[in-house]
């Protein structure tokens, strides 16, 4: 009996296999991933990409069209738009990733607990319903009107608007998972609640949350730009894409490039994240793949 070794090779997890297969079937997701990687590199390597100080004023050279010296031209204060746009990627990336990570973490914690502790559920979900009925941009506007403009506050404001959606998702996952036989078995075996959540529920929420996270990241980047554009976002001295476009608002007929360069960077980044998200969703949920 000692030689009863199973002949099955160490199997690759089916989820992972499906993941790779689907990525192969979705070239757009690969394109998205590549563009996104390029954007991350741009954000990280900003100081070494031929940029100058994004805040350096040069009134003599204001509103110059794109040229060999200033690739994206200069703005109304003579600042180099190329440098500002490249450095701006750091703000967008930071906000996108931070909001996604924070809202997933908070939403996961609330959702897990409310899904299992029934008496909490009713109260928490009413609060979440209330928060969700405030359009997210308005919610962020309210917060930003009462706090000092800073990147951190923008992150908090957008996160608060996103958390209820994550709670909803996690809660619905938990409600269906807790009916699964293996969870019932764990309950019957006397496993305590934290361990059930950690061992049996949490791992099953990873895939949907990963997908949700990419969408949150994309929408957070758009919301940040939008908030900055209407003056409720990052402080004016931060070269974020939204701010660059906000400052160019009155200048549009004179210098449309001030809007187009950051606009194209922003749209491309969001597009890349969305494509990646679509690919991951298809990969992780084959049932949905055909439909959406």
């Amino acid at each position, binding site marked *: 009996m000692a030689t009863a070794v199973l002949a099955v090779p160490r199997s690759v997890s089916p989820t992972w296999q499906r993941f790779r297969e689907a990525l192969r079937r979705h070239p757009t997701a690969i394109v998205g991933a590549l563009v996104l990687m390029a954007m991350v590199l741009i954000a990280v390597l900003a100081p070494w990409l031929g940029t100058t100080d994004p805040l350096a004023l040069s009134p003599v050279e204001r509103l110059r069209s794109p040229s060999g010296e200033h690739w994206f031209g200069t703005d109304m204060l003579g600042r180099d738009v190329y440098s500002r746009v490249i450095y701006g990627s750091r703000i967008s990336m930071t906000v996108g990733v931070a909001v996604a990570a924070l809202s997933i973490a908070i939403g996961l914690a609330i959702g897990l607990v409310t899904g299992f502790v029934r008496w909490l559920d009713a109260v928490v979900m009413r609060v979440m*319903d209330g928060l969700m009925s405030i359009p997210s941009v308005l919610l962020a506007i309210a917060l930003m009107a009462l706090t000092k403009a800073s990147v951190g506050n923008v992150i908090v404001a957008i996160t608060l608007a996103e958390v209820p959606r994550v709670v909803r998702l996690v809660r619905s996952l938990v409600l269906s998972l807790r009916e699964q036989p293996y969870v019932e078995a764990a309950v019957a075996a006397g496993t305590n609640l934290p361990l059930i959540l950690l061992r049996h529920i949490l791992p099953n929420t990873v895939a949907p949350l990963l997908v949700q996270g990419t969408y949150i990241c994309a929408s957070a980047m758009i919301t940040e730009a939008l908030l900055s554009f209407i003056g409720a976002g990052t402080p004016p001295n931060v070269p974020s894409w939204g701010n660059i476009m906000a400052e160019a608002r009155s200048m549009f007929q004179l210098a449309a490039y001030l809007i187009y360069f950051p606009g194209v960077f922003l749209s491309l980044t969001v597009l890349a994240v969305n494509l990646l998200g679509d690919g991951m969703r298809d990969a992780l949920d084959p049932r949905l793949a055909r439909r959406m």
Partner: protein
Amino acid sequence: MIVYILRRLGATLIVMAVVALFVFSLLFLTPGDPAAVIAGDVATPDDIQQIREKLGLNKPFLVQFGGWVVRLLHGDLGTSIFTNLPVTKLIAQRVQPTLSLTLLTLFVAVLVAVPIGVIAAAKAGTWTDRSVMGFSVLAFSIPVFVLAYVLISIFSIHLEWLPVQGYRQFGDGLWPWLSHLILPSIALGTVYTALIARITRAAMLDVLAQDYIRTANAKGLAPRAVLTRHALKNAGVPIITVIGIGVALLISGAIVTETVFAIPGIGRLTVDAILRRDYPIIQGVILLFSGIYVLINLLVDLSYRLFDPRIRY
């Protein structure tokens, strides 16, 4: 049915109460002194004290909240810090442009999106389908205001077909009114259209896989009749749901669109209020928009039976 409507109304009231409590408590929950933030960097202690009194921040929380709710129930949204005018009056002056913009956008978007989604589903897997899906991903990725500027530069500056900015009252004639709303509507409605088209397609694909569709096709019903009468009607519930949920996109988008196109609506009022940190106005706008949003989604809920008589309340 009546019981269901009453229960839903009750739930709606609770939601609105949460919204009101939240919007009000923000003044207290935000770290730091909101009065100082609102007053700005150059304010004297006197200014700050004045704003504190105006907002009632010097009284205990419950007293303030109680008074605020009572006034709210009497239709009083408070007074603007900057202009000293009642918020309800300020909002009422701005209703027409915003209503024109959002309603026009809503109707056009639904009229465009649903057929697009149906066609995409009917031709699933073809290039038509793929371009609809491509359009929707693109639309999700381009911010409203970037799209707005692209439209202005093409249709207003280069082709000179449409006005660059501004708004005309409906009373000034149909074309002046409409011509000022075409570009804003397109800019605002693109994401909304993409969202509805995408859900329509998904819902249609679900329905088209059903047995009764095969039966309808097998008995020789015209494909068009199968698509509209058999499939679309049964795909109605998710479509109408997303039309309701998507109104949030219209509301958020209107704020930005009105800024770009210099439309003197509620969105513009909000943006001006942000710049002046006129919190009572922001509070009022949030309550109004959230109320409309909740109401629309209540109506959507109640309309499910029109599409699916099997639904019992």
